[in-house]
Structure formats: structure tokens, C-alpha cells
């Protein structure tokens, strides 16, 4: 197979993976942008989304679209509760305390999921039959098309909300200057909850898409993608919404490239290598600006 055809194929695969990372990364970046917190538990919300979808389809017997919507709603609720219970009391605490709480929340979600859902893999129901479509010399599966479609749709909706609604304006205001936003009469607490809700919903959608793509889910499926999506957010510029998309797509493609030309055990190391390089040479990310600390 000619190398450029293989490259194109890998590009498609990479973009599919990258779209998933982008959806998760959006949640990280929005939360960081608004309260400067790295929500370690975000990857586990992605996992919960997959499980909610699983039960929506198998137990509630919903079809795909309602299942996704239900799962997104459920995850949004979890996100809001998480913020309320674990993060809000620490709004004014030193960063280290908040970070540790986030780590604790992540561990809690994973262990609870293991207890409730069982530790073993669950096969994800095939909501749509598998089909491969030929596009010239390359193939694309309908699952990949679904991932692209859903990801693009959700990102467009997010973009509209952030830039064309009052809610979005309030979100941007709070992320720029929380105190000023408060003084302008914006209910900062509610905006923060809304941000968590939106980010969690996106992650849940990603979770279901991945569950369908790989046909299985488990309580720890959120750890690696969560970490990688975080790196993607940092790569694009943490706190910057388009950055999450750019970072996610780049991350997906890079990971695919490494796995194809290298070994698969190095797959996880790609993310960390990218992370180190970004932090050392351009900590504000590709789309980020340099900041100066005032004394």
C-alpha cells in the first residue's frame, strides 16, 4: 500500500480519535478558563457518560439519540454536583488543596463505579450496525463518521452558546475577571455550574461514542483518555476553547502516527512527551498568549 494512502488513512483514524480528545478537552479547558482548576475527575465523567449511555440503551431500551441525550444530562448533573460538593468550598483555598481534592474526586468516581458497575469490561450494545464506506483509496467506518458528525455538531452548538447567547457572554466575563463579573450582577456560582454542566455533557457524548467504537466500557476507561485530553487542552492553550479542538485533533493524529510507525507500548508515552515539550517550550500552548506576573 502506497505510503501516502496509508498516511491518509491514518489521518482519518487520527482525526476520529482526535475528535474524541477534543470533546473531552473542551470540558477541561472551559473549567480551567473559568476557575483555574484542573478537574482531574473530568476523565471519570467521560467514563460515567459511557455507562449512563450503556444503561440507557440496555435497561431503558432507548434508541441512540435519546440515550445520548439522557447520558449527557446525567453527566451534566454529576458535574454540577461535583463542583458544588467538592470544589466550591475550596474556592479560596490554596491551589494545592484544590488539586488534591480533584484527585480525590477522580479516585472516588472510579472506585464507586467499580463497586456499582463491576470491575470487568462490559460490551457496549451495537446501536448501529457496522459499515465501512470507501472514499477513493481509503476507508471510513460509519462509526468514525458518527464521531465526526457528533463532535462537529456539539462544537458548533458550543460555539453558538459561547459567542451568541447571554449565557456565553457571562461565561466569558467570569473567565476574564470573576470579581468584575460579580459586580456586574452576574450570578457567578450559576455560571460556573453551567460551565461544569456543559463540559460534562460533552465528555459524556465522547464516552458513548468511544464505547460504541471499541465495543466495551470499564470503570477505568477514563484515566488515560482523560490525561491525554488534558494534555491536548494544554497543547492548544489551556483556557482557550478553540485550542482544545486544535490540541485534541493534533493529539489524536500524533498518537496514531506513533502507533503506526513505532510500537504500541509507546502510545501512552506520546501524550506525556508532548506534554513535557509543550510545558518546557511553550507553556501557554499553541494558541495561548504570554502572561507576565505583576509584583
Amino acid at each position, binding site marked *: 500500500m502506497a505510503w501516502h494512502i496509508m498516511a491518509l488513512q491514518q489521518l482519518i483514524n487520527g482525526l476520529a480519535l482526535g475528535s474524541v480528545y477534543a470533546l473531552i478537552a473542551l470540558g477541561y479547558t472551559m473549567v480551567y478558563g473559568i476557575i*483555574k482548576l*484542573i478537574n482531574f475527575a473530568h476523565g471519570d465523567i467521560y467514563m460515567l457518560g459511557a455507562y449512563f449511555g450503556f444503561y440507557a440503551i440496555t435497561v431503558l431500551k432507548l434508541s441512540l439519540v435519546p440515550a445520548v441525550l439522557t447520558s449527557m444530562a446525567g453527566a451534566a448533573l454529576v458535574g454540577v454536583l461535583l463542583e458544588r460538593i*467538592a470544589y466550591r*468550598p*475550596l474556592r479560596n*483555598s*490554596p*491551589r*494545592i*488543596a*484544590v*488539586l*488534591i*481534592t480533584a*484527585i*480525590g*474526586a*477522580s*479516585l*472516588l468516581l*472510579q*472506585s*464507586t463505579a*467499580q*463497586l456499582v458497575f463491576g470491575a470487568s469490561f462490559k460490551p457496549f450494545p451495537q446501536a448501529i450496525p457496522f459499515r465501512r464506506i470507501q472514499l477513493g483509496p481509503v476507508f471510513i467506518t460509519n462509526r468514525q463518521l458518527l464521531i465526526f458528525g457528533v463532535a462537529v455538531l456539539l462544537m458548533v452548538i458550543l460555539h453558538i452558546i459561547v459567542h451568541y447567547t447571554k449565557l456565553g457572554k457571562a461565561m466569558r466575563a467570569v473567565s476574564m475577571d470573576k470579581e468584575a463579573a460579580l459586580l456586574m450582577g452576574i450570578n457567578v456560582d450559576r455560571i460556573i455550574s453551567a460551565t461544569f454542566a456543559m463540559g460534562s455533557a460533552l465528555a459524556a457524548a465522547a464516552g458513548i461514542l468511544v464505547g460504541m467504537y471499541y465495543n466495551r466500557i470499564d470503570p477505568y476507561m477514563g484515566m488515560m483518555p482523560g490525561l491525554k485530553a*488534558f*494534555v491536548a487542552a*494544554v497543547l492548544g492553550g489551556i483556557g482557550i476553547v478553540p485550542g482544545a479542538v486544535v490540541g485534541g485533533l493534533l493529539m489524536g493524529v500524533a498518537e496514531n502516527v506513533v502507533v503506526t510507525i513505532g*510500537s504500541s*507500548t*509507546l502510545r*501512552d*508515552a506520546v501524550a*506525556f*512527551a508532548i*506534554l*513535557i515539550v509543550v*510545558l*518546557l517550550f511553550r*507553556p501557554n500552548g499553541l494558541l495561548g498568549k504570554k502572561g507576565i506576573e505583576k*509584583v
Partner: protein
Amino acid sequence: MNKLSSLIKGIILLLAYLVVQLLERQGVLLPYHVQILSLCCINVILVVSLNLINGFTGQFSIGHAGFLAIGAYASAYLTVVWQAPFLFAIICGGVLAGIAGLAVGLPALRLRGDYLAIATLGFGEIIRVIILNTDAVGGARGFSGIPKYTTFGLAYLMAILTVVVIRNFVTSDYGRACLAVREDEIAAESLGVNSTYFKVLAFTIGAFFAGTAGALFSHYLQYMAPTPNQIGFVKSIDILIMLVLGGLGSITGSIVAAITLTIIPELLRGFAEYRMIIYPILLIIVMIYRPAGLLAGNELSLSGITQFVKGARAHGNHT
């Protein structure tokens, strides 16, 4: 007064050791129990060394298991492949880990807070992945057949050594410089403290001791697997949990937490699956209500205890 309190502490420590030996000889303490005590000592070293970095210097390192891994694997390689004496292997493990600490610290410590945390996490994982891909130390299959050189006595001695060295470091000008960096880096710099130097120094020393703990660890378990549980971020977070619950900046807290959180899981073997639910809940509660940890940055000292008993003053609590 100082010489006397040091002597008393020394005697107490010696007595404790002798008591353990006696109980073991009498069969009251099973070999299994003594092994747990060895593990306690190893964890004490890990937590106290991390405390130097996170607690006293205020940096946020959550990749400590990476240094443990280097010490564990390097020392195992030396004893198994080169038939090196154990003490030599321990020191080498520590030194190599220290060098890694230097290599990681120099670039990473330019970063602040969250970014530093993620960077150290990343480095820890990279170290694990490198080990995973190194066949000379067993690769994915792990490193087996490590001789059981770690005795309780050795672990106990090394734990004491670590605590003394770090405590002496912290109560000297070096330690004060680290504290200054933690409290207010800008003010510290304007007072002549080279903050980067001290951050890297704390990092390197912490890494060194983690490496020695790693050497003890691999020769205790006799088998090392390059999994996140043993040498990856799960282990790093285990150590972090002990540190935070005991109190950042409190050596006594670290010792108490390390011992308690090593023994309790063993006692509650039956409830193992609830451990990872209780721990995080505990962690979150502590962070919300008493973020400074159990001992709130204070130390238990002989003079402190006697004065407390006299009722002269409560050992200062400032949260």
C-alpha cells in the same frame, strides 16, 4: 537540654527496635507482621522525602513514584546482574534517582502550581514507560528473582536516618531558604535566596531518598512490575495521600500517616474494595475542613510534649 532530648529519643528508638525483635522471637509478632513494619519504614522514607519537596519547599510534585522506580530497578539490576553488595546498590539507586531528580527539576521547576504538578506526573509516567520498554530489567514481564535483602532492622535504620537528615536540613539555613521559597518566592529572592537553586536542591534530595526507599522496596517485594500501581501515578498518589493527611510541612505527621496508612489497609484486608472509596472521601473532607492535615504543619517534639503536659501552653495550632 538538646543533648539530653536527643539521647532520650535515641534510647526510645532503640527500645522500640528491641521490643519488636523480642516480640518476633517470642512468636507474638509473625514474620508477616514484621514485614508490614518494614513496609511502614519504607513508606515513612517516601512520605518524608516527598514532604521536603511539597511541604517544606511548597512545590507540587506528584510523580514521586518515578524516583522510587529508578531506585528499585537500578538497585535490583546491580544486585541480581552484577552481584553487588546491597548497601552499594541502595546508594547507587539513591544517587541515580537523585540525578533524575536534578534532570527533571531543572526544567520543570520553572513552572508554577498546576503546571508543575502535571509535568511531574508526566515525568513519572515517562520513567515508567521507559522501564516498561527496557528488556534488561524485564520489560513488561517485570523484574523477578530479586533477593530479599531488606530486613526490618535495615529499613528501620534507614527510616531513622532519612528523618534525621531531613529534619536537620529543614531546621538549618538551607531549610529556612526552602521555607522562604514556599511562603513567598518574590520576597525570598529579594532577600538573596536563589529560589531556583533551592527548589532543585529540595527536589534532588527528595528524589535521592525516594530512590533509596525504592531499593528497599524492590528487595522487599522481590518482584517489580512496571504498572501504575507499583511505580506509576497510582503509587505517586498513594504517597501524596499519606503526605496530605499527615500534614504538609510536618515530619511527625508524615511518620504517623505513613505508619497508619500502611497498617490499616492490612488490618482491613477484607474491606479492600472500600479502601479506595474511603480514602478519597477522607481526602476531600480533610481538604475542605482541615487542609493543613492532621498535624497542621506542627511537629511533635519532646519539649513540646512536656510543656503540653505541664499545661504551660498548647502546642501552637494555626490553621
